[in-house]
């Protein structure tokens, strides 16, 4: 099996997933653990994921409840060395078996650092994984409405609490739902284009999801409408981009995105709040996004909440008056560090205290 990139570079190795060919956008992620969580993250829909950490599959694949969605979501997987023999008490099957089950092709035995360097210099590229000589054209998943593909198809309710949170599923990672679940709260998970503004709810959460945020036209419209009620809003990942678009700001595509578990984000609001502490507060966050909010286009009333300590890109926004805020990173972690779990806790506190 081989990986072919837009710039015609070819990386040949062995197949360890499904024997199918696939085309998509090739991205790299630098996390050293958490392949099950990443592969089942709907935000990766349409993408061929290259893991920079070379040894993948070591601890197998656990049961369903550890996934971020019901299945393997990536279009394809590329690793340095797949570990055929896995070892973990919670493992149910090997990564190869699991990928075969979900018909995801996977490539091992290639120099993933070299691929990463190529993507880093050229920017994200299209590519395909293929067996033999068959020709496969390139396909850009961002031209498709990926969110529509991965969002739930109908409304689902969880819990029996008095306070209600509407969660717009644009391809949600299930750990967001787990993080929001607590007694006293009902979660209503709705499809991406569902008009939730007529629902009775106390708070609104807009989830992560794949692709270009501009494709989510109906969601943006509903958020705009939700602003009128002034109820608390929390956006995560794609959610921050949708919130920004609804507020009138713009988004843009990053050259090669942030896909890692070690992104440092500065909390600007904390520094503002705490005049005494002129010290910067920085969190290590888990990220997976190709688009970002353009700071210059943020309208009046909004401020930057978090900033990436490395490249200065917007990592969170909040409204100066209304309880609306969103983050570009993943406070629910999974995979990655759990340092910003407090964002959910604070949001839930707010809902409970309404």
């Amino acid at each position, binding site marked *: 099996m081989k990986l072919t990139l837009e710039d015609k570079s070819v*990386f040949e190795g062995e197949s360890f997933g499904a024997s199918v060919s696939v085309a998509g956008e090739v991205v*790299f992620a*630098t*996390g*050293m*653990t*958490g392949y*099950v*969580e990443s592969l089942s993250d709907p935000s990766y829909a349409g993408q061929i994921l290259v893991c*920079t*950490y*070379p*040894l993948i599959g*070591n*601890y197998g694949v*656990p049961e369903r409840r*550890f996934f971020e969605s019901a299945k393997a979501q990536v279009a394809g997987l590329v690793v*340095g*060395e797949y*570990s055929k*023999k*896995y*070892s*973990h*008490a*919670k493992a149910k099957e090997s990564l190869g078996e699991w990928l075969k089950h979900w018909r995801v092709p996977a490539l091992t035995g*290639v*120099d*993933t*650092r*070299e691929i*990463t*360097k190529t993507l*880093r*210099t050229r920017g994200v590229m299209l590519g395909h994984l293929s067996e033999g000589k068959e020709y496969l054209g390139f396909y850009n998943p961002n031209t498709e409405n990926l969110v529509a593909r991965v969002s739930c198809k109908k409304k689902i309710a969880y819990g029996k609490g008095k306070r209600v949170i509407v969660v717009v599923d644009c391809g949600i990672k299930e750990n967001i739902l787990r993080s929001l679940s607590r007694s006293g709260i009902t979660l209503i998970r709705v499809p991406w284009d569902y008009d939730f503004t007529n629902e009775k709810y106390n708070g609104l959460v807009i989830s992560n999801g794949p692709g270009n945020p501009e494709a989510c036209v109906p969601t943006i419209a509903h958020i705009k409408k939700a602003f009128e009620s002034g109820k608390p809003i929390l956006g995560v990942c794609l959610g921050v981009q949708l919130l920004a678009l609804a507020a009138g700001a713009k988004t843009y595509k990053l050259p090669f995105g942030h896909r*890692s*578990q*070690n*992104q*440092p984000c*500065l909390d600007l609001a904390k520094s503002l709040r705490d005049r005494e*502490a002129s*010290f*910067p*507060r*920085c969190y*290590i966050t888990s990220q997976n996004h190709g688009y970002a909010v353009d700071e210059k286009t943020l309208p009046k009333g909004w401020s930057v909440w978090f900033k990436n*300590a*490395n490249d200065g890109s917007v990592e969170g926004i909040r409204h100066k008056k209304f309880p609306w805020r969103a983050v570009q990173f993943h406070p629910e*972690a*999974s*995979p*990655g*560090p*759990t*340092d910003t779990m407090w964002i959910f806790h604070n949001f839930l506190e707010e809902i409970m205290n309404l």
Partner: protein
Amino acid sequence: MSKSNIQKVLLLGSGGLKIGQAGEFDYSGSQAIKALKEEGAKVILMNPNIATVQTDYHLADKVYFLPLTEEWATRVIEKERPDGILLGFGGQTALNLGLALEENEVLKKYQVRVLGTPVSTIRNTEDRDLFTKRLKEIGVKTAKSYAVRGIKEAVLAADRLGYPVMMRSGFALGGQGSGVTRTRKELSAKATEAFSITSQILIEEYLEGWKEVEYEVVRDGADNCIVVCNMENLDPMGIHTGESMVVAPSQTLSNEEYHRLREIAIRTIRHLGVVGECNIQYALHPQSGDYRVIEVNARLSRSSALASKATGYPLAFIAAKLALGHTLPELKNAVTKTTTACFEPALDYLVLKMPRWDLSKFENAASHIGTEMKSVGEVMAIGRSFEEVLQKAIRMLSIGADGFTAHRSGNFHIEQYMKEIKEPTPRRIFAIAQALSLGVSVKKIHHLSRIDLWFLEKMKHIIQVEERVKKEKITAELLREAKQNGFSDSQIAVLTKSTEKKVRALRKYLRVFPSVKQIDTLAGEFPAKTNYLYLTYHGMAHDIVRDKKGVMVLGSGPYCIGSSVEFDWSNVQVLKTLKAHKYQTIMINSNPETVSTDYDMSDRLYFEELTLERVLDIAEFERPIGAVVSTGGQIPNNLALSLHRNGVRILGTHPEDIDRAENRQTFSKLLDNLGIDQPMWAELTTRKKAILTAERLGYPVLVRPSYVLSGSAMSVAFDRESLVKFLQRAADVSTDHPIVISKFIENAREIEIDGVASCGELVIYAITEHVENAGTHSGDATVVLPPQRTYLETIRRAKGITKSIIKELRITGPFNIQFLAKENHLQVIECNVRASRSFPFVSKVTGYNFIDIATRALLGKHVKGEYRTVDLDYVAVKSPQFSYSRIKGADPLSYVEMASTGEVACFGDSYAEALLKSMLAAGFRLPKKHILVSLGKEENKVKLLPSLRKLSSLGFDFFATEHTADFLRENSVVCEKVYKIHTKRNPNVSNLLSHGKLDLIINIPAVPLARESNDGFVIRRMAVDLNIPLITNRQLAEAFIIALAEIKERGFHAKSLDEYV
């Protein structure tokens, strides 16, 4: 100006290298000094370890070579009046000293602020009871444990937990005094021993077979907290992490486990209030995922040095900056220089650390490994598959193993391999290899060793590849697969019955090459101009291109007995001089405890094997101007000739000439031709001839078999009986493994010349003399500079001999020659055409950097000049640092085989002052009242009598064993007679020892170097186990007593290096 307005900082070093506390603290101290200097703070360094980089001229503002004790630290504080002190960069020694200074209000009195982690936090991490309590407050689980202060309490606690239990002693480095106990009896015995060095021990639940995982955590004063690295021990709980193979990042932890433990680490460190760096260790249950926090080290540690080298994140440097009040987000990532230091490195490779043991240097030492640390060094291998790093790491150990399997030497065949898997020894990895190749299942091995199946499967894979290489035709594909699985050319040669040279040629013909990859801390996410490199066969392209031609410097490899931080010091000096002369530098080393492998020491750092194959790979890629092989000890020195024959230019002395000095036969002939005397010797191929030769030379003789299975290689035979015993131990005596017998000269003194030559002419030299007579290994000897007892005539002759040897060998660069002196007659016993262990000592004492001069000589620069090295206004003494308390069962008697793990050196206005300071710095304590004297042999008694009289007149009380007591009384020295242990009569030596009344034991064996197991051994061993100062050498005893008398009158002075030199 530093953020915290600190202007003068006292930095405490770690002292002499010992087991559990090695070169890693040179790395951390040196980085701390750099960080402090960058902040404009003045640095006062206190560290008697003269072989370190941190104690160099022009690094710290002032250096004190003084004992790291409360008394001396107080003197320094009183004199220097620093406003801040750093406790976290000198290991457990510095931490304990800091705690003592705080407790006794020295810091308060002189208003010295503890920078970084507060003392209260350190106490909370060091006192097990407090620790457990503090962690309980935030719901973090620790091993169920009871802190006890007496034997009874200990037994009670163990009964409550149920056996087996784990015993740990508080305030200890490297797990000293800890261990598993399975019965009440065993517990009482171990607890008694532990209570001799500590007042509190812990009885804990025993977590056998749980995974052992570590996290390195950094926190700043503003509560920002990051985890720089996590590591997984291959050897699970029950084997000390210093004794374990350790992999980073963890391999068998799921995301949930990894981040659950990470979150607990951060929660714990925040709650404890660490500022700077710390290490947290966990036990993780392999099935349930339940965990226990084992310990927190609120300081830089061996693990943090490893984490630093594994990730490229300069932990010590950052920790020092945080201690001065900086926050993480303000600091830059030193590797990328553009991104922030507030991040967690992402690795796109893995590293494996392997410990290096040297237990065979100790007669009778227990060979199994467990909860106490015994290893003396370590290596770190970097690669992109586990198989690759495992085989690389084993080769890096430099123990003659070619990898996991397929060795050229037969030494790695383990007779009882299943037993050594179950009851681990330093050879366990080879026992596993053997079991796997004999078809033992991984399940079975897992059951015995508790090593995770994942690692064992990878090991099995190596054996599978081995089988294929043995059986199949070697194609490019198979060759690449073998290389990707870490096989070296020489292993492949063994398997295919070829030679390393032929395999290398075939590999090149088939175009199977390694790739050079960078370590950039971000897994390639951002471009980085990093110079930190490794080679792998899992790559299709190099990360870098060949740069300007540079000079390649070969490092020292792992620390072991006889090769330690002093060679790293030399290498660092070479790099500095090369840099000063605008040369590109290429450093190759495999040891994570070094300064030479710091990110800012060379232009290109290859963290790689020091094997011919790998050095050639690098040389072929870099095409250097030349290689420096004369400053890294024996490993690079041994490569000189083969590198030369493969076209690598060796700087300095011609490799053929190095070989002439190394080869016993040719060197001996050379001396004969020059008319230089040497002890008679012969090389023999049968046991019978060996005995005949010994008889001809006359006993005692020095016996050196070239092949032994266990026990030390070198011995002294005093008669036929002992010779036969030693010969039996030699596994093989043949033409392949000859035995060397040489005349052992008694009552001779030893002197050494360290120097630099250029084109066969002497440039600079320093002459040192040993306090102990010949027979004590030069590495274990107490060394004096300038010489105090050597005749000028002897010095002149030694210099003359040196000049003629240098000329004959056409030496350019550093060298060392060792002499035996008896009256005025000199014999040459050894010549090394490389820097010796004493180079940092002679450089710092004379004020001339010998390595700088040597490096300039290597580069062909003009180095002639006037150097004054004999007539000095002060005296310096270097003392060995032993680690006998770690090596259970070993006889703490100096011997022809080196046993010390480190050294210290101190200066004085007189010989007496320098000697006593130096002994104190090596852990000796001055006696107050009670001294036990036990002298074998009439000669020892007679010769020591005047000294003992002097001691007696100074008011010391003597206890003496039977004959010694009779002798003293006959000579009217008052003493109390005690009976030898085996007599069971009272008063008995053993009672005396265990009552803790003794301040000093002088035990001189009747037959020096004989190592018989008798009362003497028991006394010496108990002295070590009960932490009672011990002197076993007559010359040292004499020197010590004279010095003690002198100092009683004149007193000590705390002076810094610049006040002397």
